[in-house]
């Protein structure tokens, strides 16, 4: 569950990325955030992972108000959120397996459990055979799928993705978005930022349209 209540974010430069934004995403719901570049999509996602803090208003994730969250509790919050980045941000000096295993090592799971879960996650994104490869040897689409495997390997309750298909061709983009829809199927709350409106529309999910940090439209499938 993600809830924004009158959230304003103004950067030190004076740029106002979000302006009195309010919306709510139910647990297990999937939505897209779309809008022109600079509309505040990335900022919205950053506030969920506490990469940024709001200037005003409150954000809560899974019923927890992030406003009062102490700095030392942030890692714990982030372990419950899977994050996918446009440039995937894999560690290039480690194998695919090691990249995906990282969240589980951080969470302190036993080695056998880590192996099991990493293979399941890689299997899910169709890269089980590449577990020993270096990320650099993979195609852009494959790298992004490794990034997704890393985001979901710890079975987070919330999955957020910032332009996950930004560097991919339409067909690959479609596959990636289907993958996110699959995670919603198993109960994960999914929020994906994308400027690719036609693709977003095709998915038939809820769409939040941002414009200059304001909520311009909240489109729901089935005539909302």
């Amino acid at each position, binding site marked *: 569950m993600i809830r924004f209540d009158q959230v304003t974010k103004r950067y030190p430069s004076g740029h106002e990325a979000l302006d009195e934004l309010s919306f709510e995403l139910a647990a297990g719901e999937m939505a897209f955030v779309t809008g022109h570049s600079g509309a505040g999509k990335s900022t919205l996602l950053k506030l969920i992972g506490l990469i940024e803090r709001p200037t005003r208003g409150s954000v809560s994730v899974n019923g927890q108000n992030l406003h009062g969250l102490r700095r030392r509790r942030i890692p714990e919050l*982030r372990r*419950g959120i899977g*994050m996918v980045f446009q440039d995937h941000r894999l*560690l290039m000096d480690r194998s695919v397996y090691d990249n995906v295993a990282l969240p589980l090592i*951080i969470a302190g799971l*036993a080695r056998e459990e880590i192996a099991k879960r990493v293979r*399941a996650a890689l299997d899910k994104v169709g890269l089980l055979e590449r577990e020993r490869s270096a990320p650099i040897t993979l195609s852009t689409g494959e790298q992004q799928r490794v990034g997704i495997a890393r985001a979901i390997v*710890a079975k987070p309750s919330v999955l957020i993705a910032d332009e996950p298909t930004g560097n991919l061709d339409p067909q690959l983009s479609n596959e990636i978005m289907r993958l996110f829809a699959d995670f919603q*199927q*198993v109960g994960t709350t999914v929020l994906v930022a994308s400027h690719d409106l036609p693709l977003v529309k095709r998915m038939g999910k809820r769409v939040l349209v941002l414009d200059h940090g304001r909520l311009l439209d909240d489109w729901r499938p089935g005539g909302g």
Partner: protein
Amino acid sequence: MFGNKPGGNRLKPAPAAPRAAERAPPRRRLALSSWRDQHLYSLFSSLGRLLARPWATALTALVMGLALALPLLFLILLDNARALSGGWQDAREITVFLKPGVDASASAALAQALRGRADVAAVKQTTPEQGIEEFRAMSGFADALEVLQFNPLPHVLVVTPAAARELDEPAVIAELRRDPQVDLVQYDAAWRRRLGAILGLSQRSVLVLAGLLAMATLLVVGNTVRLDIQARAEEIAVIQLIGASPGFVRRPFLYTGVWYGLFSGVLALVVVFSVQWALRTPVDQLLASYDHRFHLRGLEPLAALSVPFVSAVLGWLGAMLATARHLAEAHPD
């Protein structure tokens, strides 16, 4: 593009996805084994990282190793100087030359009086006849002594004061100097005190030097770790984004510091033992002139063992300082 991939490389349908029911368990329950796993992971990943750049690592460890070896060598030198001077330090006797006119009975009476004192441990009487015999035996002036018409030596008392504080002059000396029967009181305290002071000063200097060089090694580790942090800024950012605690982020850098410390400690020992080995022959020749009454004292086994341990602690401390400062700097909340 996707469709052309071999079967195992394709996206699987939904049923393979993790089930909501088996979602992440509470992370508080960190079992001991996984805590150990995390440490082993940091320990070996940091070691692997160091060994991937053997020359840079060796150079850093060598700088630190030399900085640690220097005070160790000085300490060994000082230890030997102390052992050499130890024989002289025991010379506490006061030599009392009586006036020429004082005869044997007066000498004996004075010796008896001195023996009665609490601050005197022993008194040895030497008659002029005994004195000239000693002189004859020791000095090689036997022939010259033959020419003497009479024995010019006075009665001599050698007084051993009771063990007192090292630096104080025994009170008995002042009293003997006032005694009209006494011609001269010879007490070689001044040069002994001077030697003691020189050794004390040297020891203090070596300790100060050791402190400064320890600080230098701390800075070398700190700077190396700082560069490492800068080089791995992206990695640090990523693992922080996926929920790594500050401790988890810090740990590999701390282990890096410990490894540097260990390597440099071992190198310092190699340097010290090499120097000992290289100096052995000339030192043996020098000691031969002392009739082998002294032995070269090397680094003791326990002290040698503690060197890598201490240097590892130094490395850890240097890395701690660097991470405290630069990790916070790199990622302000």
